[in-house]
């Protein structure tokens, strides 16, 4: 019932797709970004300290998916350390193992570093290790994934809340609008950082806590646009015609106004995603973000700052963040072009 009908693409949708493709930089950025996302989503199969598959004494094991006690392979720990030479020898003597390309997870410590941690890039650790002797490449892969997933989730929910709030303000206008606007003015002046510091003393901020807190403030970035669109659209003749038919307010908002407000909203979403990722990185950098030990790009940057003698830390963090954010901005520009009324004639 909502806007998009893929079976009969209207000429305007087709023209938008064409405009999107015409922006070569944005178009390729999208494919690179999608490729990076597809590669890093199954990070456990790409960089892990457990083998993907192991055959031991004729039985098949899936260490990536299942935790086996070490007793299975003749050890004594509760959880198997596949990087341990004794276990490796035991398994290889009685079968075989398939390892992921990178034998480190984000929290795996290289127990035999060539130099005191952080150690520079080597064949074992292509991007070097950090100050706790963990593999930087593995942490970057996991960090990229969590950043993007966090950004997407936050953007998704703040879009929903933002559109709803903007819709109510714009559609009803008057006193509702006035009170809502004043509320937003006050609310947007609350300092997020202090709230997070206070929160950190009560609960341990995990992924979902951070998401909830940031959501409480991020939604406001969209309300302005949506409110303006609804204010404009509520006086359109087709909205009046629907009122004359006896259509209720909720149906009018969903069916007649929202699809037209969505265009303005969609143009903003890539930039919102960028902002969400940046804010998580900033919080991690300051130490108020994800719990200690989590793979995060912000934490990598912080390590780069405290270990200037190990430039691979800061440089890797910078390169990954710059690439990711640039790709998203380029995609955003292409989306903006695609919906540009001057180019689509609508």
């Amino acid at each position, binding site marked *: 019932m909502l806007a998009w009908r893929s079976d*009969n693409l209207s000429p305007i949708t087709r023209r938008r797709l064409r405009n999107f493709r015409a922006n070569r930089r944005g178009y390729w950025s999208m494919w690179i970004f999608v490729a990076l996302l597809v590669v890093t989503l199954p990070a456990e199969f790409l960089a892990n300290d457990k083998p993907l598959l192991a055959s031991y004494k004729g039985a098949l094991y899936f260490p990536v998916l299942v935790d086996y006690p070490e007793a299975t392979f003749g050890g004594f720990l509760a959880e198997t350390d596949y990087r341990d030479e004794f276990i490796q020898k035991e398994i290889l003597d009685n079968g075989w193992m398939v390892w992921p390309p990178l034998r480190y997870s984000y929290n795996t410590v290289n127990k035999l570093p060539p130099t005191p941690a952080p150690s520079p890039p080597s064949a074992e650790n292509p991007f070097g290790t950090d100050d706790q002797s963990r593999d930087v490449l593995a942490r970057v892969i996991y960090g990229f994934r969590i950043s993007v997933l966090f950004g997407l989730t936050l953007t998704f929910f703040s879009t929903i809340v933002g559109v709803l709030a903007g819709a109510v303000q714009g559609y009803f206008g008057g006193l509702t609008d006035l009170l809502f606007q004043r509320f937003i003015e006050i609310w947007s002046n609350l300092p997020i950082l202090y709230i997070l510091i206070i929160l950190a003393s009560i609960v341990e901020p995990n992924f979902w806590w951070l998401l909830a807190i940031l959501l409480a403030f991020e939604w406001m970035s969209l309300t302005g646009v949506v409110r303006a669109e609804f204010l404009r659209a509520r006086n*359109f*003749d087709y909205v*009046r015609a629907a009122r004359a*038919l006896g259509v209720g307010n909720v149906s009018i908002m969903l069916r007649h106004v929202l699809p037209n407000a969505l265009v303005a909203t969609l143009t903003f979403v890539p930039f919102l995603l960028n902002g969400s990722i940046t804010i998580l990185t900033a919080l991690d950098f300051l130490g108020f973000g994800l719990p200690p030990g989590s793979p995060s790009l912000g934490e990598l940057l912080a390590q780069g700052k405290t270990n200037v003698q190990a430039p691979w830390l800061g440089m890797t963090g910078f390169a990954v963040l710059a690439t990711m954010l640039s790709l998203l901005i380029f995609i955003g520009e292409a989306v903006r072009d695609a919906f540009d009324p001057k180019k689509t004639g609508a």
Partner: protein
Amino acid sequence: MTDTLVDIRDLSVSFKTQDGVVEAVKRVSLRIDRGEIVALVGESGSGKSVTALSIPQLLPTSAFHPQGSIRFDGTEIIGAREPVLRAVRGARISMVFQEPMTSLNPLHTIEKQVGEVIRIHRRLDASTTRARVLELLNLVGLRDATQRLAAYPHELSGGQRQRVMIAIALANEPDLLIADEPTTALDVTIQAQILALLKSLQGRIGMAVLLITHDLTIVRKVAQRVAVMTGGEIVETGPVDQILTAPQHPYTKHLIAAEPRGAPVEPRPDAPVLMQTEDLKVHFPIRKGVLKRTVGFVKAVDSVTASVRRGQTIGVVGESGSGKTTLGLAILRLIASRGRIVMFGQDIQGLGFKATRPLRRRMQIVFQDPYGSLSPRMTVGEIIGEGLRIHEPKMSDDARRELIATTLEEVGLTRAMLDRLPHEFSGGQRQRIAIARAIVLRPDFIVLDEPTSALDMSVQAQIVDLLRELQARHMLAYMFISHDLRVVKALSHYVIVMRDGVIVEQGSTQEIFNAPREDYTRALLAAALNLEVVIPEAQRE
């Protein structure tokens, strides 16, 4: 003087688009003599404006001329270098556009905007410029010109703005004035004044006018020669009398036959009263100061008492700002009002949303702008079916689809159009869709808010015929709101004349059209039907 000023030969204009080259004008030839008014007539999209814009070479950059020549006073325009063109534009050829609301810069005073054109082409000092500006404003009949010098465009009415635009166009005493639908956006009485002005100026300073219009009444009134355009070609050209009385080309015949005519079908005299208002008022408060205290009211509609019987059409006429549309919206309770509204024997003033809903299927509305009144992202079937989903929730999908399809056929469309989107249709087709949305619920009373004003002349006639036919078949009652008295005459049994929110005069259509009692009604009629200026005070001196 009969020497040729503009000579267009075999001119073609094409546009480069993403879908290839589109040919807008095909091998057009046209001659304009000095001091002559030539009308270029045709429907929207026929290539009139594109032809006219090629004379000063003001087409968008995507346009090009595959062939043809334009000679202006002996000089070839096509392929001429920019300095040559600039010397011609503004100084020897000037233009007046349709929309007086957007053609003036809102941030500059009238004096500055008129003076600018003079200063660009002639080096004059400030006091001479000012004297010339005043002279021009007096020439175009702007009253109190001295006080108006410091005024900004928003302080002027539409007609006054169009006068200023004409003053700017006349500033350098051009040889040719291109007027692109100069009066379409104006009220009828103002329209008559502007046309009278154009004609008198042409006589006084001997300039040629290329008048682009779709309105044959205007052509008959002011032009000497006329060229008829359709599909990018000029199909017929000649003196106005000859073309309008003895058209040769079938398209011209069609255009002349297309003027709305005919009389409404009489309802039974004992038909029951469907809708009745008593002392209906719509007042918008004017608030001032920090505390937003109400200091007064804009009386958009004031003390209107009217009634409609089954099968009857009541025409509401008046100029823009007279409260016609507000009255229609208030009766359907789409805006807040005070006073009694009795609909189908029940006072609906103050009824809640739930209580009004069952009544909504019996009263419907069709709006003026067929481009704005259909949701752009819903299919025709969804648009028409929306009311059915609310008022007939139990109807099966197949039955609903069938009813929508037959309604589409009833308004002259085909059922194959059910799954298409509004932008695929022309203005007239969209208006038919809007009418289908209104009648699919089998209403008793429909408010028609200028349903023909945004349409081409021949389409207007078709819509009027359709409305009359639907009325006879379903015994519908219409409230027909329009500023176009010809259409009102063709459709209404009873007419209300409104001015500043108040009913000035009302009576049967014959009474109003044949024996109007009020000066205002007389002025309106003269302007609309013969383009005559009746209000003496509105003219200069």
